[in-house]
Structures are given as C-alpha cells and as structure tokens.
C-alpha cells in the first residue's frame, strides 16, 4: 500500500491544485500516465517530485525543459502522452547540449530515461514524438 501512496498523493494534488494555466483533459490524462510510469520506480526507492511539465508534442521538434540536478542522486524522468501520439522517447542532455547516456524505458506513448549526473548543475530533458501526430504530453521527475 505504501508504495502506491506517492501516486495517490500526486493524483490528489493533480485534482486539487490550481495552476496558472488550466490543464486540458489530455494533459491531465498524460500526467496520470507519466505518474503511472514513475510509480514503478517508487518500488526501487525513487521519490516522485510533486511537480510536472506538460505541453504539446510536435513532429520533428524537441520539447525541452531545463532541470537542475545534484551529483550523487539518481533520477528518472517519466513521460506520458495521449492520442494521436503513438510513440515517444525521453532523452537527457548536459549543459553543453550533448546527449548523455541513460537507461531507457519505452512503451508506446509512455517512456522514461534514468540517469545519475556526474556533476551538479543544469541539464535538459527532451520529450520527442517518434510516431503519431501532434498531441499532449506530461513529464514528471523522480529521484533517490
């Protein structure tokens, strides 16, 4: 039961929180999917950060967000997307823009990248549309 608590807490916040920009139904669904992927990593002791990043995935475009990470921690960035998106990928880049090697998880419109930064500082997480058409996505971060 305990392992599901972070997901329930996150879903509760998802339902109750008021954001500056109201989330669309598709983004809410994408966030639920992203939390479902992140929930699997909770079994390995990863804590889901109570924050997210949602947007629209476009073909041949990187949806990029800046994150600040600490050396010593391990991170998973989990993404979920909704129809008509068919397949996505999550990648991590260092502060110079060079792609870093990550563990990956891919399951159609859900994907994740796991990474232990060698240095503290700024990194970039990219969510890419591999198959399908333009649609909503959401990204969550977990760490231990």
């Amino acid at each position, binding site marked *: 039961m*305990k392992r599901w608590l972070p997901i329930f807490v996150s879903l509760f916040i998802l339902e109750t*929180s008021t*954001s500056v920009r109201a989330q669309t139904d598709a983004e809410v669904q994408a966030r639920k999917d992203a939390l479902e992927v992140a929930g699997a990593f909770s079994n390995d002791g990863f*804590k889901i*950060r109570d924050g*997210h990043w949602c947007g629209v995935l476009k073909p041949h475009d990187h949806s990029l*967000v*800046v994150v600040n990470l*600490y050396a010593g921690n391990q991170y998973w960035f989990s993404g979920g997307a909704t129809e008509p998106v068919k397949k996505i990928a999550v990648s991590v880049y260092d502060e110079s823009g*060079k792609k870093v090697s990550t563990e990956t998880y891919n399951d159609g419109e859900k994907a994740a990248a796991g990474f232990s930064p060698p240095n503290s500082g700024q990194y970039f997480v990219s969510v890419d549309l591999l198959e399908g058409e333009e649609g909503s996505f959401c990204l969550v971060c977990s760490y231990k």
Partner: protein
Amino acid sequence: MTRLAKLAMLAFFAGVLVAAGAEETGHLTADQLAKAARSDLITIPTPGELFAALGKTGKTNWSGQYRGPIPVTYRNRAQIALNLGGLIADGFIAVEAKDGQQVKNIGSDIIKLAKALGVSEKLLGRGNSINEFADNDEWDTLQEELEATQNEVKSSMQSHADQDLVILVTLGGWIRGTQVVTSAIIQRYDERSAKVLRQPALVHFMQSKINEISPELRGEPLVKDVNEQLGEIEKLVSLPQSKAPTVEDVRKINESVGKVMTEIQSKELPK
C-alpha cells in the same frame, strides 16, 4: 507556383534534416538550449533533493543543523513568503533527522505563516497529515507531504493573485537549504559532497524570476537586498565542473547565504 512548391518541399525536408541531424549527432543547438522551457515546478529542485544528494556521501548530523524558532508574526508579505520557504526547508531537515516532534513544531509554524498570507484553508488538513505521519514515523511520506504543502501554498498564492510571492517561497527554501548544506560540508569536508554546491544556472533562474515580479515588490528593501546578494551568491556557486569547491569556497558561500538568512528572519526590516 511550381517553383514555390519546390521551395516549400525543400524547406520542409531541410527542417526534417536539421531535427534529425540534432538527433543523430546527439547534440542540441545553442538555439534549442536557449528556447528550452523553464518551470518553477520542475526546473527548481526541492530542499529534500539537495539533502538526499548530501546524504549519499556519508552520515550527516541533521539535528545539529536546527536553528532556533523564528518569529511567526511578520507583517511584511514578502518577508512571510521568504520565511515560509525557509521553514519548509527546516521541515525537510527534521525529516532527514527523523525527529517527529521537530517536524510537528515546524509544521505548526508553516501553517501559522501560511495563514498570515491568507492561503487556502486546505492547508490546515495538511498540518494534521504532517502530525499523523510524524507520529507514525512515515518519513518518506512526510517528505512528500512537505513538498505537496509547499506546492499547495504556491498554488494558493497563484489563485489569490499573489503569484509574485511564489518565487520568494522557493528562494527562501533554497537559501535555507544551502545554508544547512554548506554548514554540514564545512563540518565534514569532502570533495564529493562539496560538488552539490555547483548550481549557477539555478541561482540565475531564480534571479531572473525575481526580476519579473512587480516593481513595487522588487523595490521593497528586503527583496532588493536579497536580490542584490543573490548576484554575489551566483558568482560563488559558478564553480567549474572539473573542480570541487575547496573548504574555503564552501565557507564563503555559507557566510553569504547566512547573511541573507539572518536578514530574512530578522524582525527589523532593512530601510
């Protein structure tokens, strides 16, 4: 028209090739990096994340990092927001120390300060949850609850048209977190733990957010002072990737954030 169609086709394929090129070379362009989204909720790490990184390098005396109780009767809203962030960081410290009573005391102060800002009544429920989890030694859940509390305070501020105060909560938490981490590193220096202090982009981002708030709030003596000192702190945490900060570097950061923290929690506002 045919010529235009050919040009359009060429432009389309060039666009595809540029995107594919970035993918193949595994390198993002300067333009892509500059246009990357920055969001308070995902770009700025929580104090808990910073403490987790420090905890990897050995045992930290978390209870040795407590500070005495701070006033919860401030009148200035910017000062309340900054102290609220600092108190939430204190909550994370108490969780790391696995000190239930301290978590409950801090939780109670968080609610008092949040109420002074007129944020959501729902927070009272959070206070009860914090007490319950502390009584049951549910430390992981407590950490999540503190993070959720912080985000609920921020959400409530946004819905009360107090969005300018949100960054001050985040900033207060980062300053207090950095004060604690630098103090712990000085007490038990090693290069690996000192490396967590390299965060120039993070400080730069927070400063850019402060520069976006209303001129009235930015002009308040406390906010102005904190913002100015943040510029100095940014220089101190702009450390090279290849080299860990020395104990002297860490001491300088600790002194700078300590000075700001003293000003934030003082009842006497700067003039």
